[in-house]
């Protein structure tokens, strides 16, 4: 069996491996604590509180909700963003399926389409819907965000939804939707800094950066609290490392 240390000395990414191992250990540790019912505090994020209220509002008014899922591929570098989009879709789908008004969605990533269809069908089943829809309410709008925005715009003009959830890599094209349908409540989330700046001014409720990826912990997945605490712990470690590095480099001890 090859020992680990010589493996790290070759053509490897040792720092990446060490960071992944540390984070993996922290995620495992804190997830087990979360499973055991350990108390962990969360700072309030308004967008997720409002999302729960949205489901109640949609139930009372029997209004539909639209989701613009963006171009994040579940098998590519946008995997986390795609997961966040599916998480929100599942939450809303599960909470308003019984109203009989389906969540409608559009995406411009072909691989995200079957994933979203499966997620929504499962969410409707878990809401007690005996015959969940087959996912036909989710459409693919071609591989360009602009096409997706046009498709979403038409669907929103026809259905007059209560809200529009824009999560994932929706791009600047999301602005077309917010400005053409000001009467709709636009929930926007992006982990792309450039998109985030635009969505911050355009969306009614916006979540940017890593907060997009922490939706599960806030909504209906308490197990995600573990990974959230692990992230924060590693962030503190990295901040200290950066500060130490800056001081060391400034006084000439390193670099």
């Amino acid at each position: 069996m090859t020992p680990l240390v010589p493996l790290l000395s070759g053509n490897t990414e040792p720092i990446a491996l060490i960071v992944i191992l540390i984070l993996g250990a922290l995620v495992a540790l804190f997830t087990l604590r979360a499973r055991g019912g350990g108390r962990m505090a969360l700072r309030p994020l308004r967008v997720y509180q409002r999302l729960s209220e949205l489901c109640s509002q949609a139930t009372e008014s029997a209004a539909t909700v639209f989701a613009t899922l963006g171009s994040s591929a579940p098998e590519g570098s946008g995997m986390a963003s795609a997961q966040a989009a599916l998480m929100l879709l599942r939450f809303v789908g599960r909470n308003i399926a019984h109203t009989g008004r389906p969540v409608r969605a559009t995406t411009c990533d072909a691989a995200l389409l079957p994933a979203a269809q499966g997620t929504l069908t499962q969410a409707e089943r878990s809401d007690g819907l005996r015959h969940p829809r087959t996912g036909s309410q989710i459409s693919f709008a071609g591989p360009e965000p602009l096409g997706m925005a046009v498709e979403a715009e038409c669907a929103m003009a026809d259905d007059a939804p209560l809200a529009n959830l824009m999560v994932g890599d929706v791009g600047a094209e999301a602005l077309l939707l917010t400005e053409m349908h000001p009467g709709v409540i636009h929930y926007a989330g992006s982990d792309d800094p450039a998109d985030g700046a635009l969505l911050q001014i355009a969306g009614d409720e916006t979540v940017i950066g890593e907060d997009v990826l922490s939706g599960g912990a806030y909504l209906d997945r308490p197990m995600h609290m573990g990974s959230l605490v692990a992230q924060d712990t590693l962030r503190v470690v990295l901040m200290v490392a950066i500060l130490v590095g800056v001081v060391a480099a400034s006084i000439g001890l390193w670099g």
Partner: protein
Amino acid sequence: MRRIMVAAFAVIAGLLVCLGLLLPSPWLGRVADLLLEGALILAAFALLLGLLNVLRSHAQKAVKGPRRGQSIVLIVALLLTLAIGLLFPQSAAQAWVFDYVYSPIQASLGALLAFVALQAAFRAFRLRTVDAAILLVSSLIMLFLQIPATAALWPRLGAVRDWMLAVPVAAGIRGLLLGIALGTMATALRVLFAVDRPYTGEE
């Protein structure tokens, strides 16, 4: 049982790809490449599924939707472009479709975004929130510093602009990216540890 097997396969495949990318083992690398190629092939088939989804959804709308005309135009354009691509691949006809139909339409719609962004910003400024105020002040400062004429007022403004981009702006973006990277890794680890099982569709 089926779900356990699917989860086990996903976890093993994920671990192999992760280790194949990080460790210099030739056989791990080959296995990782094989699995990644498989994912790419599946993604290509997903595009075919997407094409069928577009056709089905717009065929239904063309029969009884409020925008029948638009759906008919879309289906005809899609089939025509597909036929040109299949019958005359890499041809001048195919390039013509992209250069003189697709690109101008996309550019026209894209050009609208500048006005839409301005309208959105104006709406945000009218709300008079702290976020909008910060955005307004920082936008004005950057706009002022980017205009070539300002360099004539004070030659060192260029250096101020470069410092602002290199220090406060870069620091803010790097902080954001650090958090996103940690969040992405945590999401991937949740899938690897089967805390999240998107492949089985279960909660």
